[in-house]
């Protein structure tokens, strides 16, 4: 069996982290190719349900990243996002959903190297954790339940 390759989704804002990741490219800094980026205008736009849907669709890890506090292109979107994540993380911890699989970070448009670091450390961590078996099992049993019901 081939080595486990984590599937990692990255939700990033257009103005800081997306641009930072562009800089990583321009600087030719290498990082793990397991991460795929979905672009948002602002971290304030990122619905917590998308994180759940990522796990449900088989993600092993998630990165959420945007502008540093006070640097938001829209003044306050990242501050609202921060509160949302604090609450979300506490709820996930309470329900036993593995928050080690989600990296929250601030990466600015100037931090190309940092983006590579964030990605690599996340992928390394997820690689050690292995596939998110318990969540996948829950989703799969669900599918089975439905098959039986049908």
């Amino acid at each position, binding site marked *: 069996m081939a080595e486990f390759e984590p599937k990692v989704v990255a939700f990033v804002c257009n103005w800081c982290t997306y641009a930072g990741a562009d800089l990583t490219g321009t600087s030719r800094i290498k990082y793990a190719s397991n991460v795929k980026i979905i672009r948002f205008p602002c971290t304030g736009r990122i619905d917590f349900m998308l994180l759940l849907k990522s796990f449900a669709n088989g993600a092993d890890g998630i990165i959420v990243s945007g502008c540093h506090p006070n640097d938001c292109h829209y003044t306050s979107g990242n501050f*609202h996002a921060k*509160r949302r994540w*604090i609450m979300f993380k506490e709820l996930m911890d309470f329900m036993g959903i593995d928050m080690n699989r989600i990296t929250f970070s601030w990466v600015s448009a100037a931090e190309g190297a940092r983006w590579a670091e964030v990605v690599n450390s996340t992928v390394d961590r997820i690689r050690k954790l292995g596939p998110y078996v318990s969540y996948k099992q829950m989703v799969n*049993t669900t599918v089975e*339940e439905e098959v039986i019901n049908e």
Partner: protein
Amino acid sequence: MNSIVSRAKELLENKSVQVIVGFEAGPTGKARPAFVTYPSKTDILIFDERCVQNLAVYLTKKEVKQFGKIGIVATLPIMRSIMMLISEQQVFAENIEILGVSTEGKYLDIADIQVMQGYIEKCDLSNPSNDQETLAMLNKMSMQEKFDYWQNELSTCIKCYACRQACPMCYCTRCAVECNQPQWIPVQANTHGNMEWHILRAMHLAGRCISCGECGRACPVNIPCHLLTMQLADQAHKYFNVYAGTSEKMSSVLSTYEPNDKESFIL
């Protein structure tokens, strides 16, 4: 107790309100909500330890609103719900009279919203102590144990949405679960979908839950779903030093921010 009846009678008599929402004794000995519109009927109103339901849920109901101005028997959680509903523009302070009941079950003379606010601020606003114990117990579990616990509990959910119906803060006319583009929450009742529903509900109540526990009481299959929202109420206080429903002007935790909000997990 007598004060509730006499105040209710007075309010109805001088037409300050058109309906009193309170409690009456039901046929099986349980307390049930009462909607009194005549001064002469106010005698049926009771208040004792059986009266735990959060009556604020009726304030946003069309059938109750149509009477006009409402007087409501309000315990601490009900008062906090009213504050939340005012701050979210679902109820207007001028359309409501409060017949206060203290945490010891005594009548409180609440002249206006400011007085109610003063009272709320002085109260202990943390979660009820028995729920606190359960929360502490759950918080001690390992991640896998928690996951198994909730998977097990939520597997029995039949998606009847009684939790939603009982909650005064769930007043949306269209709930997110009814949204099908995209279908955020699967229609069927299955463990994974149930979990997504309860997470969605808890997040929508994050910083808005006033710890009445009504959702848990309403659940026909006894899922302690109130613990999810109470956990977040606890955390909202821990992180942001606010309790929901303490001011008519406050905006909820997730619709405001402070630049120096503290967290320790964002890189």
